[in-house]
């Protein structure tokens, strides 16, 4: 599997599980002629078994990156290569969507089983597998409930169980913990770290939270909007497993955190279309802070 010491960028990219090179993607806008440039000349590569966080303000194309990697949309130009091939959606990749996307008329059990449709497991195996992952996220008592009967945090856990159930080698997670309360989030983060330690999937994890990005990832990719592109990549050289110590108390974490915060603040303040736009040369009239 690992080809010894790979030295040099090219070798790293060649052995990477996910490679985006020179990717551009625009979307038609309904009520105007000019399309939105969601991504422009984006390069990104994720080595097998690595956990990469994508950090950036809303609208910088984070969701679009995940959809491209999953093969749900094609790039306009450039190339997306996943495990040496053009990506094809399926159970080999697990997708945790930003707004859950649970099937309202299917029970929790049926929702998770639905993700196993194309796995080749038979009906009995699918039921068993789904039940196992539902138990893993602590929802066995709610297996026969409908999503409408669950709290936001519980729906989120169903979405996680669904993405994990096919035991994918790649996980694409789109702000999975954004809409759950702080305590649940902490617990879910630890759960995710433990799951990842066991399965070692290749993970692309989109988040708004600087702390979360650093805490979970081997590398943080910082993106900037209009057009979406990568402006910075930072290796997080903190030892695993990270749930065994208070990572936030380490000097390295504090250092990374303040560095990323400064970078994001710059980004937002210099983006003319952000609510906090305040050109550094003269901020008269803007109620910043």
């Amino acid at each position, binding site marked *: 599997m690992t080809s010894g010491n790979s030295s040099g960028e090219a070798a790293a990219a060649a052995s990477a599980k996910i490679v985006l090179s020179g990717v551009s993607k625009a979307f038609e806008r309904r009520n105007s002629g000019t399309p939105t440039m969601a991504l422009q000349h984006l390069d990104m590569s994720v080595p097998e078994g690595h956990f990469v966080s994508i950090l950036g303000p809303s609208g910088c194309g984070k969701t679009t990156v995940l959809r491209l990697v999953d093969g*749900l949309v094609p790039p306009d130009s450039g190339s997306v290569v996943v495990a040496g091939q053009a990506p094809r959606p*399926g*159970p080999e*990749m697990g*997708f945790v969507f930003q707004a859950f*996307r649970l099937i309202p*008329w299917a029970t929790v059990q049926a929702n998770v089983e639905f993700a196993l*449709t*194309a796995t080749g497991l038979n009906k009995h195996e699918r039921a068993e597998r789904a039940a196992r992952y539902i138990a893993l996220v602590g929802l066995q008592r709610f297996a026969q409930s409908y999503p*409408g009967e669950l709290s936001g945090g519980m729906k989120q856990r169903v979405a996680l169980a669904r993405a994990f159930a096919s035991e994918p080698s790649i996980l694409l997670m789109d702000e999975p913990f954004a809409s759950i309360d702080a305590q649940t989030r902490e617990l879910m983060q630890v759960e995710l770290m433990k799951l990842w330690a066991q399965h070692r999937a290749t993970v692309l994890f989109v988040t708004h939270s600087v702390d979360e990005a650093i805490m979970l990832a081997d590398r943080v990719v910082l993106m900037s909007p209009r057009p979406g592109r990568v402006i910075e990549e930072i290796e997080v050289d903190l030892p695993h497993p990270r749930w065994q110590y208070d990572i936030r108390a380490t000097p390295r974490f504090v250092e990374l955190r303040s560095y990323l915060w400064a970078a994001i603040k710059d980004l937002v303040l210099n983006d003319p279309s952000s609510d906090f736009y305040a050109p550094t040369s003269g901020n008269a009239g803007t109620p910043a802070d």
Partner: protein
Amino acid sequence: MIALYRFLFLIFLIVLWWVISLNVRANFIPSPWATLLAAQKLLADGKLIVALGDSLITFAGGYALGILVAIPVGLVMGVFLPVGKTLEIYVYALAAMPRVAFIPLIIVFLGLGFPAKIFIVFLGAVMPVLINTYAGVLAVDQELIEMARSVRAGRMQIFARIVLPSAVPFIIVGLRLGATIALINTVVAELYTAVRGLGGLLAIYGNTFRMAEYFVIVIVLAIIGVIVSEGLRHLEKRLVRWKTSD
């Protein structure tokens, strides 16, 4: 509790009816009691049962035929969007048109018997069901479809597990509207073609001012309407029990 209130309101309506019947010239509004006697008589001589049977055949035949055509056509229009976009303008035009206008034409082709009556009911029922089925398919959550694609669900699976269930509440609204119009058109058909069924009795008693009998027919029609719409409400409860709103 609600059942009790409903019952009390029914009593109130009957009392109101009775008071009105006392104050209007007796021939025009029969008293509840006279109506009950007329109902007994109509039941005893079998006229009501025969007419009810005729009307139910017309209603059920036309309504069922309408559903059988409308749901598949609506689904095809929604799933194959070019088909839908091509046909929708004609569908809306036909739905907006007063379809009684077709009755003379229908009589020319189908005569005055059951085929003509059933076709008139069909014409009324088909449009609301079709339009709502089509709207239901169009309203499907595209994000759910993308989710299904991400797990490599096939087209048939996406249709059966995502598109169809999401259209069901719309289809039921269509079935409700369709049932109402089908019932109206049943009476219309019986008035304009061979005079038969409940509509036929309505015409006969109305024209001869036999108001007690006339009221019996009106009440029977109302009861059919209530039974059909309650049946559909139960169907809806069964099919969309995942909705937690009640």
